[in-house]
């Protein structure tokens, strides 16, 4: 999973995709995941980070992360490369 080229992520959770002109707002957890993705983190590492940071069990963390990633994909914010 990689964030698409040139996607702008601000600290307060505002995301802008200059290719489509779409903009989004995400919460603190969303920014956390996006930042990890931007830093090149793998899905496994991010899952572990989420569990540690938010004290989540594997099932909940995996479900939430997958939901979020599929949403990012549907909005063309990430690619599988």
């Amino acid at each position, binding site marked *: 999973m990689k964030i698409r080229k*040139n996607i*702008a992520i601000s600290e307060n959770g505002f995301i*802008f995709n*200059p*290719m*489509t*002109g779409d903009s989004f707002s995400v919460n603190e957890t969303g920014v956390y995941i996006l930042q990890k993705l931007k830093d090149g983190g793998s899905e496994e590492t991010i899952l572990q980070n989420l569990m540690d940071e938010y004290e989540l069990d594997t099932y909940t963390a995996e479900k939430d992360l997958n939901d979020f990633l599929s949403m990012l994909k549907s909005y063309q914010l990430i690619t599988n490369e």
Partner: protein
Amino acid sequence: MNKRKITVAVTGLNNIDSPGPGIPVIRGLKESESLDVRIVGLSYETLEPGIYMHDLVDKVYQLPLPTAGSAMLKERLKYIVNQEKIDVLIPNFDAELHNFIKIQDELKTELNIATFLPSQAVFDERQKSELEKFGEKYGVKVPESYMINQVLEIRKLEETMDYPMVIKGRYYDAYIASSYEQASTYFYKVVAKWGYPVIVQEFVTGTEVNVTAIGDGKGSCIGAVPMRKLYITDKGKAWSGISLEDDELMDISRRVIENSKWRGGCELEFIKTKNDEYYLLEMNPRFPAWVYLANGCGQNHPEALVKMALGEEVQPFTDYQSGKMFIRYSYDQIVDISEFQQISTMGER
């Protein structure tokens, strides 16, 4: 820096809910860093808001409607240049362009008015009715489209084309029809306003993206900025939009401008499908009403056009800013009846 003083005549002062490009073009010119531009507005109707915008339009003359023909237009322009010198004229309406293109050489030689328009052949090539040939020639995908003159021809098209279909006028207007009943209603609506033929086009699903561009007529694309509409009025006009960063769209647009040797400003309207394919829906032969966004992104297209019209070499813009937005607003001007009377009775103010 000393700015060069010139006078530019501009049409399309109808800054209404379906706006003409005149006022945005003028704003670009007024912001030129090298030209000090006096604006002569050319209007067709007495309630075009631009007529009364004194801070942007210095003088206004009415023009005969395009249906009066190029001879009448030339006569009127002869009168205008007897009042004051016009260095460059920028027509901004699709319907008037034919007349201006026809007399562009005479305007230069007889009235010393420079224009920067395509030749009739290049202009005709991108007519809505010729879109398929245009797409084939310049390697750009276009939706299937047919020209019809009788409503019954829609029935025949149903054999090869599914609903929804797009019913379009030859100059403006497009309606999406989901049934024969709707298609026939729109057919008559379009005929009443724009005459024959009516264009029936395949409906391509996706996101509309538009490009404002300018070509030098010798095969160079001087500038191009892509935009997506963020808010659309009930007339389908952009009330807000944002500049995009899309390399493929820019490549396609440049290819069209360069290969067609387009001369002047234009707007390319595309649909980007889910599979990232681009379909050219239309090439409008003049600047769009949102051309001022290009200025906001770092490319002053109206200024570049005026310079080229004056015979100057203009270097192509190499960059623009994405993520710049335009947001339109409406504004009530208070005008005294005497001014309205002046333009109504004298044809100038």
